[in-house]
């Protein structure tokens, strides 16, 4: 008697569309998906355990390697958590430098998110143009911190060094050219009918389900929930800049993608304002008076910032010694992934790639 049978396909740890080493076990009925089982942990390096064996300052380079597309934002989260724990006030100039550098890191991360999303859907050139912009940002990061991706530039109590002289002309040139580049992505990717056909109405995520499943970042805002920590619970000096939070309507792949494009424009605005206000500031110190060997008081702190992929939280417990007793990192990509199964049901294999790309996960952060 003829009957169709479900077969499992292994989108294995080495697959062009899984943004690294994520393994998806697809239970397929022909081309339509019956069930998706994400298997993570292929890049679990045990950073939380390693952090317990290093001093507070030595943990900073390890936070770079979490979400390696936006290293500055990881540093910002950890450093602000420890400052909250020790009650340190950082100088004004350092606050502005941190905002500028974090927003640059957010733009770089969104450039890759947009680029790899176009690549997943087959548009190889759509992958190359954002990389060209990101290279300019990489050069500026290298001027500031000395390395392109793993900067470990922020310190507890401020930043490692002031912005170099040749940084200002470079950032001004970038700020002038960037809007036209984003319009170019719009023309090439967003406006393209094939791209819209592949993403509009695909993998819809309702508001209640998104909030219930603790989704955060552009994935949450794509479903219409206006929740951005920079506005909802401002940290640092975000309340001095005016920018909007882009919010989607239907919560499909296109809205999530388009939130990232809009966020790039908003970050561009923030950097512009921050640069103006920084130039008015008299040249002050960039590092607070912090003892060489940090010994925070016994206690714990949980501090959240708006990372590039979502809410990035640090829970630091200190027992009074120079090494943290426990560091837990709330990783947005890890949590945004658990809803992949429900969002992909009933769609095709090509859509699993589209939905996974629209959630924009980084495996360094998923597996911590």
């Amino acid at each position, binding site marked *: 008697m003829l009957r169709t049978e479900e077969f499992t396909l292994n989108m294995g740890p080495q697959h062009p569309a899984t943004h690294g080493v994520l393994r998806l076990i697809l239970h397929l009925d022909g081309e339509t998906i019956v069930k998706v089982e994400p298997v993570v942990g*292929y*890049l679990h390096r045990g950073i939380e355990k*390693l952090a317990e064996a290093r001093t507070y300052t030595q943990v900073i380079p390890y936070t770079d*390697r979490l979400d*390696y597309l936006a290293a500055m934002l990881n540093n910002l989260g950890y450093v602000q958590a420890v400052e909250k724990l020790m009650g340190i006030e950082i100088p004004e100039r350092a606050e502005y430098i941190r905002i500028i550098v974090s927003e640059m890191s957010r733009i770089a991360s969104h450039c890759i998110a947009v680029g790899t999303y176009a690549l997943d859907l087959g548009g190889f050139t759509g992958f190359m143009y954002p990389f060209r912009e990101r290279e300019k940002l990489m050069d500026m990061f290298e001027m500031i911190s000395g390395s392109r991706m793993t900067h470990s530039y922020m310190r507890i109590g401020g930043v490692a060094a002031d912005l170099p002289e040749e940084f200002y002309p470079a950032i001004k040139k970038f700020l002038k050219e960037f809007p036209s580049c984003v319009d170019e992505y719009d023309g090439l990717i967003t406006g393209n009918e094939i791209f819209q056909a592949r993403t509009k109405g695909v993998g819809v995520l309702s508001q209640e389900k998104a909030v219930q499943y603790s989704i955060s970042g552009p994935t949450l805002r794509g479903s219409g929930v206006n929740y951005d920590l920079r506005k909802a619970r401002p940290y640092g000096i975000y309340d001095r800049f005016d920018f909007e939070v882009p919010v989607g309507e239907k919560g499909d792949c296109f809205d999530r993608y388009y939130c990232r494009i809009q966020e790039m424009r908003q970050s561009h605005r923030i950097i512009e304002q921050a640069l103006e206000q920084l130039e008015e500031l008299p040249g002050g110190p960039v590092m607070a008076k912090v003892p060489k060997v940090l010994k925070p008081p016994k206690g714990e702190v949980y501090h959240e910032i708006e990372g590039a992929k979502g809410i990035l939280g640090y829970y630091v417990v200190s027992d009074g010694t120079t090494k943290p007793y426990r560091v837990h990192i709330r990783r947005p990509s890890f949590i945004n992934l658990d809803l992949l199964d429900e969002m992909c049901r009933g769609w095709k294999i090509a859509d699993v790639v589209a939905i996974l790309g629209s959630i924009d996960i980084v495996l*360094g952060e998923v597996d911590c």
Partner: protein
Amino acid sequence: MVCLEERSIGMEIKKDLQTKHPVEDLTDDPVIIEQVKRTITLAPLEKILNLARSNSLWPMTFGLACCAIEMMAAGGPRFDLARFGYEVFRPSPRQADVMIIAGTITKKMAPFVKRLYEQMPEPKWVVAMGSCAISGGPFVDSYSVVPGADKLLPVDVYIPGCPPRPDALIHGMLLLKEKVKNPKVVEEKPWKAIK
């Protein structure tokens, strides 16, 4: 003139064979030595094929962690791996020549790395990119990290850096190119573009 040189190189090779064949220090069983001498000679054709292989090393898309982003940047417009013809990132191991291990190999990932290496067809090479691939790097004390790719596979070129710049990766690939062309280059100091 050219043919003279050609012949002299030829004679050199023959001279080597009379004196001492490398297989002699492996075994002293005369039958094996005689058999090996008769069958295996490094024919000039191999040299030409090595030249072709060195100019079209197709890497496999095998990004693990942060170094994978620098590998993508190497393929990007600024550093352009395509100038050397290496930009054809083949997703399937069957069509790849070079496995660039870009990132940390965890114990859960090790069997897959091994299987992918075995699935690659013969002349294949391995480039260990970044401190994690060379020796476990920043995560060497961790409970779930394999301390270095050479615990699993024979590695041809080590590129330190965390992550190494895309031009450092291109420098590594050019070293691999020299090695493919002439395996003896391993003894000397590696070629450098920056003096």
